[in-house]
C-alpha cells in the first residue's frame, strides 16, 4: 500500500511502532537531529541548518524573536498511556522556561481540556501561570467546546476575539492569525472554518504587503492529512487561497498528536506533538484513539514546538523537541526538498 502520507511520519513514532514502514522515504524528506528538527523557510525552500549555532548568533539581533507552540494538553485525560497529563504539561512548561532564548510568547493550538470542565481549565491556568512567557495565545480544540458551544472557552481565553474565537495580531512585522475550525461541525465532514470566518480572514489579510510573513494557526490541520479520521479542514482551500500571494506562510496545527510537515509553494504546514498522549500514524491503527506506549517512552512522543523568526531573510525555523530530550540539539544535514 504505497501511501505518500507515510513518508511524512514522525520518526519518533516510527521507532516505537517498528512497523516496517520504509524509513528511507522520510529520511530523504527531513533532516533529523535525534531530538529536534530544524528547518528554515527561505523563499519557500526549506533549508536545514545547525540549530544551536543559529540561536546563539541570531537570537540577540533586534527584531528577531522566538515563540513556542504547545498543543493538545487534554487536562482531565487520565487513561493509558498518560494518567498524569498535568505533570507532562508541567514538564513542557519547565522545558520552555529553561530555554536559553526566552520566547516572546506561547501559542496553544487547542484541546486545552479533555471535557471542557471548569476544573480542567483551572488546572491548565495554574500550570501555565508558571510559564516565563506571560503572553499566551489560544485557539480552541473540539474538546474545549463540548457542552456550551465554546462559551466558557471564549470567556476565559477568547476575550476580544471574533465569532467563535478567531483573531489576528502582529509581532515585530509578522502577522499572526488564530483560526477556529472546530465549531459547528457537519455530519460526515472534517474541520470547518465557515463562511463568516473566511470572509473575516480575507478582509484581515487584504491590504497587507506580500512581503509580510504570515503565520496561521488553528487546531485541526488546515491541510488534508487523513480524511478517514477527519484529519483535515473541509474549507481550508479557500483560506489558503487568501495567503497565496504572500512570500512566507507558516501554518501551525495540533489535533493529530504527532509531527507532520509539508511544503506547498511558499506555504509550509506543520503539526505539533501533544503534551498529553500520542496518536497513531494515519491508517496504522483501527482508529485515532490514544496510542499506548511504555511509560519510559512516553516523553519521547510528547513535546513542544519552538519557532524562531530571523529578520534577515524573513525566515522561520521550526524545532520540535520531545519532552524527554535534554538541552538544545543541533541539526546538521542537507536541506531536503520533498515530494
Amino acid at each position, binding site marked *: 500500500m504505497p501511501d505518500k502520507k507515510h513518508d511524512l511520519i514522525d520518526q519518533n513514532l516510527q521507532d516505537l511502532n517498528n512497523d516496517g514502514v520504509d524509513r528511507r522515504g522520510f529520511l530523504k524528506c527531513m533532516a533529523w537531529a535525534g531530538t529536534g528538527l530544524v528547518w528554515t523557510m527561505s523563499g519557500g525552500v526549506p533549508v536545514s541548518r545547525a540549530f544551536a549555532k543559529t540561536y546563539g548568533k541570531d537570537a540577540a539581533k533586534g527584531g528577531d524573536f522566538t515563540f513556542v507552540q504547545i498543543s493538545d494538553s487534554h487536562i482531565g485525560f487520565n*487513561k*493509558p498511556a498518560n494518567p498524569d497529563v498535568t505533570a507532562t504539561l508541567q514538564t513542557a512548561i519547565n522545558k520552555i522556561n529553561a530555554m536559553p532564548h526566552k520566547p516572546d510568547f506561547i501559542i496553544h493550538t487547542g484541546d486545552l481540556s*479533555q*471535557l*471542557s470542565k471548569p476544573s480542567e481549565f483551572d488546572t491548565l491556568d495554574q500550570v501555565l501561570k508558571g510559564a516565563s512567557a506571560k503572553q499566551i495565545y489560544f485557539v480552541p480544540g*473540539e*474538546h474545549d467546546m*463540548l*457542552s456550551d458551544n465554546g462559551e466558557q472557552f471564549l470567556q476565559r481565553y477568547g476575550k476580544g476575539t471574533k465569532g467563535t474565537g478567531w483573531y489576528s495580531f502582529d509581532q515585530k512585522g509578522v502577522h499572526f492569525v488564530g483560526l477556529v475550525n472546530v465549531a459547528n*461541525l*457537519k*455530519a*460526515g*465532514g*472534517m474541520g470547518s472554518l465557515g463562511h463568516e470566518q473566511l470572509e473575516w480572514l480575507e478582509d484581515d489579510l487584504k491590504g497587507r504587503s506580500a512581503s509580510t510573513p504570515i503565520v496561521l494557526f488553528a487546531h485541526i490541520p488546515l491541510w488534508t492529512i487523513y*480524511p*478517514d*479520521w*477527519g484529519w483535515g479542514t473541509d474549507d481550508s482551500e479557500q483560506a489558503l487561497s487568501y495567503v497565496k500571494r504572500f512570500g512566507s506562510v507558516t501554518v501551525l496545527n495540533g489535533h493529530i498528536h504527532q509531527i507532520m510537515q509539508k511544503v506547498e509553494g511558499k506555504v509550509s504546514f506543520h503539526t505539533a506533538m501533544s503534551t498529553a498522549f500520542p496518536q497513531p500514524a494515519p491508517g496504522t491503527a*483501527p*482508529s*485515532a*484513539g*490514544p496510542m499506548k506506549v511504555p511509560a519510559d517512552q512516553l516523553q519521547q512522543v510528547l513535546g513542544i514546538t519552538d519557532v524562531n523568526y530571523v529578520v534577515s531573510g524573513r525566515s522561520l525555523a521550526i524545532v520540535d523537541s520531545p519532552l524527554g530530550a535534554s538541552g538544545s540539539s543541533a541539526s546538521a544535514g542537507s536541506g531536503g526538498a520533498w515530494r
Partner: protein
Amino acid sequence: MTKKNALIAGLAVPVMIAILLLAGSPRVTATDKPSAANAVTIDNFSFGPQTLSVSVGATVTWVNRDDIPHTSVSTDGLFKSKVMDTDEKFSYTFTKAGTYPYYCTIHPKMTGQVVVQ
C-alpha cells in the same frame, strides 16, 4: 471448550449464584436489562452497528467504550446526547417510524442511523 475452561465455567456459575443470593434480590434481571438488539456501542471512533433497526417505541442506548469522549446527535435535531466520556451512556425512545441519521458532533466523520419500523 477446554477442560480448564469447563472447570472455570463450572465454578463460575455457583459463585455467581452465591453473589446474587448475598446481594439480596438480584438487581439485574432479564427484563430490565437493556436489550442488546437496541444498543449501539461506540468503539474505535465508530458506531456499531452503523444502521440499527428497531420497532416503534424502542429505547436505544448508546454506550461509549472509547478512551475519548463522543456524542450522539440527531442530524435533524430530534435528539442530542450530552458528552459521553468512557463507559457513559445515552438513551432515546423512538416513538415514530422513520430513518434517523445521527453523528458525533466532536468527530463528525462518525455517523450512524436508526431505522424505526
